[in-house]
């Protein structure tokens, strides 16, 4: 089962996220600096992928069909591959899917993949989310 969701990238959200993780570059805060560098608006830091994937990966993790005991869930690993920059004003659609379930002892690894595209249909980010249920 796949979970699909859209996320509208807002300028203030990019600034709030950039500040929360300590990014320094004016590309994330100042639209003029971003425009001078050739972007339409402030540029999301790469790890902002965790934000725009949220509305798809969150419900995928909680999907009762997958049977994940949420309070026992640990985020064990993460991979992102970025393709196109994301800027404020973009609309990102993410499809999340459970792609692997591997038992190990009395624990189970659940691996989800996400694929995010922008409003022009360009691939912006692929993610692999590995979760361990203790």
């Amino acid at each position, binding site marked *: 089962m796949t979970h699909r969701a859209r996320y509208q990238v807002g300028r203030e*959200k990019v600034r*709030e*996220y950039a*500040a*929360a*993780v*300590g*990014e320094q*570059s004016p*590309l*994330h805060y100042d639209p003029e600096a971003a425009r001078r560098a050739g972007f339409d608006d402030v*540029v999301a*830091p*790469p*790890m902002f992928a*965790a*934000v725009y994937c*949220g509305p798809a990966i*969150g419900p995928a993790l909680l999907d009762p069909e997958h049977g994940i005991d949420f*309070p026992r869930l*640990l*985020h*064990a*690993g*993460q*991979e*992102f*591959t*970025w393709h196109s*920059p994301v800027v404020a004003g973009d609309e990102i659609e993410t499809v999340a899917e459970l792609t692997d379930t591997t038992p190990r002892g009395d624990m189970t690894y659940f691996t989800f993949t996400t694929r995010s595209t922008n409003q022009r249909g360009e691939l912006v980010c692929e993610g*692999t989310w590995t979760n361990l249920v203790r």
Partner: protein
Amino acid sequence: MTVTPDRYVTFRYAGASGDFNPIHLDDDFARSVGLPGRILHGLWTMAQVARAQGDPLALKSLSVQFRGIGVPGQEIVITSTPKGDGVVECEAVQGDQRLVRRGRAVLTIR
């Protein structure tokens, strides 16, 4: 790169990211599930590893394993070891906890 998360960082990251899992916000809840107190978001720590790579637009991919438990208020040391062809091996350590191991970043070579 070193970074010391202040005591409010998990609240700011929760608001910025939408991840309000109480293990990151509520010491009592965190202790009730066997943690030492509220812990850092793994994706916040991963964002520090990403930031340590320099130019955010040059980052093509980043892969990490989360292991140790990160807490607010203690310095995190991020080491990045270039391996050639834009590949960088990285890890993040806080005290005796390895928060990120087997990190692998791939950077655009300009």
